[in-house]
């Protein structure tokens, strides 16, 4: 009997509890508890919930990808096993993250503001932004809220859903991992080119954890998480470009929002993918993962040469694993971006060591490309 059916047996109340607990676990507790494992040393410009959540969310996806690929190859009926192993790994990482955060807070005198000192003093030091800045923040939040509301209230037709969303539905309802033809329902061999990108299985995992139908998870729930998360990355980039607390950061977010809302100039643009195919791997790659890699490159190259912040590097490796989860070409595109920036830095700033380190971060991409070539 599947996990889902076992939970559903006890009626609507249990289903509601499962939905609430599942959403809380997958989208709140896991990212927020795993995040502190990565954010050590990143606090030069203050703590940031966006950074913590992004790190935890990407780490959660990467853990799933690392577990899903071997399980999928070795066990055709492995959905239950995948759920158990993923939850086990996430719980371990969450415990490690909480311990790490607790140790740091203790060391820093239980301060929530990044440096030792009394919380009340810190609160008094907070400066409210000016009127113009507040207006731009208001517009930015309105634009983000508008896109989230539209993603919930409006449906976007895309033919690829007949493949990807159905793979999620199949994994959730039958427990079979990528061995059923989505279009018809007939049995088939593992299609390794699509199968190595395990995002549809992650959607099935979310469906199992929450008891929500996989199509609802993909079309309705995920956009409500992915849209604000993508803007959180824009926020981090804005902070890096203009400086933390700069009044131009909200203006940057507003312009980014306008370019998404008015970016449907063809079927190929990232904005089109972002708002019309938000739940698909290609969209998450183009709008969240590559953007995250871009932010990490800004941070890494902005580091002092002798003080590398290992959290950024670890997060870059994590993002590379996640790129493989989104689409088979994702590994190559992420590595290409990192390689171009690394080469440019090596030539322009004579930083060959940086290129080598960036190359080492791309080892997961190489591994996935080799796996793809060997198995397909």
């Amino acid at each position, binding site marked *: 009997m599947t996990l889902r059916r076992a939970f559903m047996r006890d009626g609507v109340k249990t289903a509601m509890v499962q939905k609430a607990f599942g959403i809380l676990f997958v989208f709140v507790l896991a990212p927020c508890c795993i995040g502190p494992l990565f954010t050590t040393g990143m606090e030069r410009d203050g703590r940031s919930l966006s950074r913590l959540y992004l790190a935890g969310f990407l780490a959660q996806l990467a853990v799933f990808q690392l577990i899903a690929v071997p399980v999928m190859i070795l066990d055709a009926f492995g959905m239950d096993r995948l759920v158990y192993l993923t939850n086990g790994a996430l719980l371990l990482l969450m415990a490690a993250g909480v311990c790490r955060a607790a140790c740091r807070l203790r060391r820093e005198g239980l301060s929530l503001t990044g440096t030792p000192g009394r919380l009340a003093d810190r609160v008094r030091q907070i400066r409210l932004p000016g009127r*113009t800045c507040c207006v*731009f923040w208001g517009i930015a939040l309105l634009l983000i809220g508008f896109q989230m509301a*539209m993603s919930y209230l*409006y*449906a*976007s*037709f*895309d*033919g690829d*859903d*007949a*493949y990807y969303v*159905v793979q999620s*539905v199949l994994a959730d309802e*039958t427990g079979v991992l990528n061995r*059923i*033809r*989505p*279009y*018809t*329902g*007939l049995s088939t061999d593992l299609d390794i080119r699509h199968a190595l990108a395990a995002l549809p299985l992650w959607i099935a995992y979310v469906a199992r954890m929450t008891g929500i139908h996989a*199509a609802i998870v993909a079309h*309705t729930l995920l956009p409500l998480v992915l849209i604000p998360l993508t803007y959180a990355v824009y926020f981090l980039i804005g902070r890096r*470009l*203009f400086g933390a607390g700069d*009044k*131009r950061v909200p203006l*940057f977010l*507003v*312009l980014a929002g*306008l*370019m998404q*809302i*008015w970016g*449907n*100039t*063809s*079927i*190929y*643009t*990232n904005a089109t993918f972002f708002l*019309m195919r938000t739940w698909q791997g*290609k969209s998450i*790659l183009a709008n969240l993962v*590559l953007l995250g890699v*871009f932010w990490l490159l*800004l941070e890494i*190259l*902005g580091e002092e040469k002798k003080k590398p912040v290992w959290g950024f590097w670890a997060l870059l490796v994590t993002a590379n694993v996640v790129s493989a989860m989104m689409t088979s*070409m994702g590994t*190559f*595109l992420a590595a*290409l*971006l990192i390689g*171009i*920036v690394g*080469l440019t*830095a090596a030539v*322009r700033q004579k930083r060959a060591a940086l290129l080598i380190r960036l190359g080492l971060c791309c080892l997961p991409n190489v591994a996935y490309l080799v796996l793809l070539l060997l198995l397909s």
Partner: protein
Amino acid sequence: MSEILRIFQEYCGSGWYPVLFLAALLYLLVTEKNRTIRLVLVESSLVLVALFFLPPFKALMDVLDEGTYYRVLWLWPMTVGIAYAGIKCFGRHPRTGFAILAAALILTGRYTYKNVNITRAQNRFHIPNAVVAICNEMMPAEDEERVWAVFPDELIHYVRQYSSEIQMPYGREMLVPEWTWNWDTHPIYRIMRVQPVDLDALAPLLTEYNCHYLVLNRAVPTTGSPEENGLVKIAGIEAYDVYRNESVPIFKKQN
């Protein structure tokens, strides 16, 4: 090279954001002083721009994944580049600058929510209500095996997003003419795509392929009698009639 230019033009479509991005890069190339931003946002982007227009690079990408070269354009940080350059350009006049930039972006772009593929959601599945109702009508009981059904073209994409309990003799692969290896190869589809639908020819094939149900759009004309061909109408849902092919039994699950 002409192929690359065609891909670039198709990516731009009716908009000007890539052109604005190239203008932003040139502006930042002249004005940007911060070493890191210059390197990551400006110089690396210029390399990516040059690389995209290099035919040997396209040849390499085609070896890896043919037909997806436009995705290299996703590496151009267009949104970040345009927004950053715009804000820098109007740095001392944020409100005037914002008005000009917003107008430029709106006028040179296209509103996503006017796209014909975006419609008001009928439920949280984001699947038409008709599909949900039809699938519920033919859903096998807990102790029954999965069923097979033939649907009209416009519903095919949605059926299995709702339930894996309903299987189809052919699916989306039959609807995409570019997929020449699949398109138009299934004998049932060859009948279903022609108007009027010939029920006398269709019914024996439904039985041959073990299809339990047939869904027809009432607006599509048919020839032949459903009843005489063993098709019993069990429901009329919105614009569709659902028929049960009584020649094919629904089997019980074997424990």
